[in-house]
């Protein structure tokens, strides 16, 4: 294993120190327990939007802390959910009197720890669980769909709503609307290596890709032949389109996400193909986001996320945001 780290045990803490140094105008890092908090928190009268999850998905979630998005992020160890006391601490540091909304990605550990935190927190707290990954069958026989790329869009949109004064119930209702309208799927060309494990998390032959991959180095739906970019984009887009389903006439946000190890050159190439495929189907791409925003360490691969937009979502997407990873309108 060759990585720019000193010690697998302190990798998250060490990275947080660098983040604090780089973005002290936007956020404050607390280390025990680990919580990344918006620099001007708590904001009086504003609903606190809080998320968190395992580290290794940067910039998610800490990179989205700042005006117009998250009030706090709780970073767990690499690919491990944060503990409930981190979340409780985040709530108490950011609640400006209007309560807190917890955005939880649907993984068993995240759900259980955030659930315990909601029981323990002294503020008024509501939780929403995002589960946008169409690669996983949602049935009684699985833990349900995973939360993936849709999380970034949800955090931006509900963060903008909270910033302009939406109350807790309105933030929760908006979140549920976004969750109902967003679908994603990913693929991996290589596996990633978790620092404390030291070896790649799955095996792939040179000409294979893992289709329907998650963001934790866990294997996906199936190993298939890695073909051309057009075949890859289509393999991701078709299941997404069928699932909601998206139809001709829909207005969408198309998010082409890199898994950490794929260059922007390839992401833009894939994005262009996806735009064309959607245009061919009469689906209007009104907003887009391209880049590595929810990653899986150094994994090569990509995911596509489609969000069916309405006027309010477009307006909230366009609203000012000032965070380490997303910044416009300021």
């Amino acid at each position, binding site marked *: 294993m060759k990585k720019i780290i000193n010690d697998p045990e302190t990798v998250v803490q060490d990275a947080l120190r660098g983040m604090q140094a780089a973005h002290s105008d936007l956020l404050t890092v607390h280390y025990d*327990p680990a919580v990344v908090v918006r620099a001007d928190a708590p904001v009086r009268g504003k609903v606190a939007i809080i998320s968190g999850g*395992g580290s290794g998905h940067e910039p998610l979630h800490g990179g989205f802390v700042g005006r117009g998005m998250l009030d706090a992020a709780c970073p*767990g*160890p*690499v*690919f*491990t*959910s*944060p*503990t*409930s*006391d981190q979340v409780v601490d985040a709530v108490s540091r950011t609640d400006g009197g209007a309560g807190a909304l917890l955005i939880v990605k649907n*993984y*068993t*550990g995240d759900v*259980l*720890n955030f*659930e*315990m935190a909601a029981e323990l927190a002294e503020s008024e707290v509501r939780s929403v669980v995002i589960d946008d990954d169409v690669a*996983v*069958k949602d049935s*009684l*026989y*699985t*833990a349900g769909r*995973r939360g993936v790329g849709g999380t970034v869009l949800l955090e931006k949109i509900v963060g903008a709503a909270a910033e302009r004064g939406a109350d807790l119930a309105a933030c929760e209702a908006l979140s549920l609307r976004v969750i109902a309208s967003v679908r994603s799927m990913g693929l991996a060309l290589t596996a990633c290596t*978790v620092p*404390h*494990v030291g070896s790649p*998390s799955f095996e792939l032959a040179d000409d294979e890709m893992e289709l329907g991959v*998650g963001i*934790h*180095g*866990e*294997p996906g739906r199936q190993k298939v032949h890695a073909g051309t970019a057009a075949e890859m984009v289509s393999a991701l887009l078709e299941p997404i389109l069928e699932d909601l389903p998206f139809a001709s006439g829909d207005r969408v946000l198309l998010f082409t996400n890199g898994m950490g190890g794929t260059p922007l050159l390839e992401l833009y190439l894939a994005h262009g193909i996806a735009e064309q495929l959607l245009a061919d189907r009469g689906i209007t791409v009104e907003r887009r986001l391209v880049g590595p925003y929810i990653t899986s360490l150094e994994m090569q691969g990509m995911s596509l996320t489609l969000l069916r937009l309405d006027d309010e979502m477009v307006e909230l997407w366009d609203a000012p945001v000032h965070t380490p990873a997303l910044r416009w309108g300021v």
Partner: protein
Amino acid sequence: MGCTAADVVAAVRAAAAVVQDHRDELVRLDQAIGDADHGENMKRGFTAVLSRLDTEPPDTPGKVLKLVATTLISTVGGAAGPLYGTAFLRASAAVGDAAELDRDTVARALQAALEGVFARGKAVVGDKTMVDALTPAVTAAASAEGTVAATLSAAADAAEEGASSTVPMVARKGRASYLGERSAGHMDPGARSTALLLRAFADAAAKA
């Protein structure tokens, strides 16, 4: 003769040592069907338990179990943190203020732990989780006779058998469930860690 707070502390220390020794094995099991963090998370949790036992030694068995619970909840993360945390918390409540644990109290504590895991994780037998190890352990403990050590030993035997029974299962809970049929052929890491903890407790009780 029952188990005192010092005996329970010794058992927890033994469990921490076993978790440390089996860290890599648990990581490997989790790498096959999950996200490769179980061994590391359990090691981190029990290392924190050891350091708290040094700085604030509890004076009843129930308080020892509660210290383990709150430490695991605040340090393990993942699903294992809340699940083991809840299990130890319920076990602690079940033994109450008792100065010593007898056979019946131990069996009751195990039953309470299992109920906590059911309530928190909502898994049932056959889902390929720690429930598949803990459930037969509780049944075995309830019908075991003799000393605390004999009770825990019966529980550990049953848990090991239960952990082995998870190998052919298709996971229906947790991250392994995303794999569907591909999860068969691997032991569930949570069931394995449950069996390891119970064996460590049993061995420690035999020495007490």
